[in-house]
């Protein structure tokens, strides 16, 4: 009973319950074979690409900020890699570093504008989103004369960033797990994590407690834009080409994954494990539906309903956690 309660009070409870509910729904009503679903690569690949972006976006949300410019940064990372290493024939390392540097630069702009003004970060990143879309498109057309650029990566880069493990599972899955573990460690086991939660809870008190709130905010924006560029870079290396479009879907998908994962949009509450499971849940709904008898067109309806139910569930658990008076020592 107590272990169930301490599980429910954790931010990731809603995400894990949603995942179980969705899977059960698919098995019971969709006639899905669980073994086939677990063995399938499509939803895992989808989750990995989304998850690498969703984790830093979720951390920003815990700190009370929002970043929607990721929608432009994924194609931007892809194009930077392809233009530098494909069109101009520079070594792949230059293309990769260029993509990541572009991400860091845009993140820096987002972060600086957010801490220097009182404009909500949603609006600031909306501005950089549109501007970056224009920059990527026009740069691609002006420099290469085309909206799609080919790139061929050497074997080692292909092995690290673009191979298909077992012919189906993208190597980005490994990166996703590494990034998730690293972030989970930083957020839950170091002082920086404590700072992020404090900032999302009450920025002024956090600053007065000596936390460098501006530096942390900027660092988080740099992380999210760089992670998005990283996903773009991996896609370019894997598919041997980069497209200027695509990426917009990531904006809402990432927000939904994060929120289903138990992060409070207004900040101060959440967990990396929760975001991880939120992403898996999202991926299972949107890709797993192909394995069911259910028409795939209903997946968006399920996502919408699941989002609202999961958020309501998270709210309830949080209220329960707040009213928990801790009769016994060491809740876990």
């Amino acid at each position, binding site marked *: 009973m107590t272990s169930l309660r301490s599980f429910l009070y954790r931010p990731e409870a809603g995400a894990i319950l949603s995942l179980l509910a969705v899977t059960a729904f698919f098995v019971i009503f969709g006639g899905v074979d669980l073994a086939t679903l677990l063995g399938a690569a499509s939803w895992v690949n989808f989750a990995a690409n989304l998850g690498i972006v969703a984790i830093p976006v979720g951390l920003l949300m815990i700190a009370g900020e929002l970043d929607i410019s990721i929608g432009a940064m994924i194609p931007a990372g892809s194009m930077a890699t392809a233009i530098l290493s494909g069109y101009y024939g520079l070594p792949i390392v230059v293309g990769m570093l260029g993509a990541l540097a572009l991400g860091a630069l845009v993140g820096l702009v987002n972060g600086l504008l957010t801490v220097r003004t009182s404009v909500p970060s949603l609006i600031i990143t909306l501005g950089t989103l549109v501007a970056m879309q224009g920059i990527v498109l026009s740069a691609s057309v002006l420099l290469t004369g085309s909206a799609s650029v080919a790139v061929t990566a050497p074997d080692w880069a292909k092995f690290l960033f673009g191979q298909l493990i077992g012919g189906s599972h993208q190597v980005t899955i490994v990166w996703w797990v590494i990034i998730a573990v690293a972030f989970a*460690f930083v957020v*839950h*086991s*170091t*002082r920086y*994590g*404590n*700072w992020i*939660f*404090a900032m999302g*809870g*009450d920025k002024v*008190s*956090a*600053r*007065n*407690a*000596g*936390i460098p709130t501006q530096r942390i905010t900027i660092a988080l924006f740099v992380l999210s834009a760089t992670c998005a560029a990283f996903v773009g870079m991996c896609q370019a290396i894997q598919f041997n080409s980069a497209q200027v479009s695509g990426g917009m879907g990531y904006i809402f998908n990432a927000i939904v994954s994060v929120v289903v994962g138990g992060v*409070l949009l207004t900040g*101060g*509450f959440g967990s990396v494990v929760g975001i991880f499971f939120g992403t898996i849940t999202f991926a299972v709904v949107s890709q797993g539906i192909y394995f069911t008898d259910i028409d795939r067109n209903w997946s968006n309806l399920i996502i919408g309903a699941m989002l609202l139910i999961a958020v309501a569930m998270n709210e309830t658990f*949080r209220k329960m*956690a*707040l*009213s*928990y*008076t*801790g009769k*016994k*020592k*060491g*809740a*876990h």
Partner: protein
Amino acid sequence: MSATKSTPILAMRGVNKSFGPHDVLHDINLEVRAGEVLCLLGDNGAGKSTVIRLLSGVHRPTSGTIELDGKPVGFDNPRAASDLGIATVHQFGGTFPLMTIGRSFFVGAEPTRRWGPFKVFDRKKANAIAVKAVRDFGITRIDDGDRLVGGLSGGERQSLAIARAVHFGARVLILDEPTAALGVKQASHVLRIVNEAKRRGLAVIFITHQVTHAMAVGDHFAVLIRGAVAADFRKGQKTREEITDLMAGGEAMAELEAMIEGYAASQDGHAPQVA
């Protein structure tokens, strides 16, 4: 020891503060000694919060000086004031409702332990210290450092914040209306903690408009009316009724009401905007 007794830890000498053309405080002289509770009384808008902001480093005085241990000091920001041992605890404790007791207690000063090549947050140690610190102040209901701060009662949150300030070496505690939002029982908790802080030799500035609470713990009282110290007296020199009358300020009150009505009429019934 006798020298420290006679020198106030914190004092304001002839402090004026104006915002643009508006004089908010005129010629404020206040002092507080170790092991003493100074109650700063006054109605809303009397300038209490401006005094707090000056002492806690949010604003600087327009003229006059703030003295710490008899020497003039200037605080550039709240951090500078708290580094010198002046801790301000706001009405709701200024803590983070969705963080655990242990984590919020150590925000900005997290205890760490080595874990391989990394320095990791020491949850056990943080929880133990936080719980002990609060319990030492007599709040025995708090026994689990993993509880969320938002789940504590108002009095417990205040106590946690005060315990935190003391733990981090505060010499002067500025308590901003700690009992305003609390019920009778909760308020008595907080008053007990104020007494405990006093017993430990801290200087306490207790800001309130509740005369009963002030009289329960105060050694020294100052009444602010429209930005000036209207009365300054020690324990036992005035009765509760006298203090209440002072605070309301008879004629001044009537004048204020007329002003408010005039303002409301000129603004078409809209309340003034809160800046």
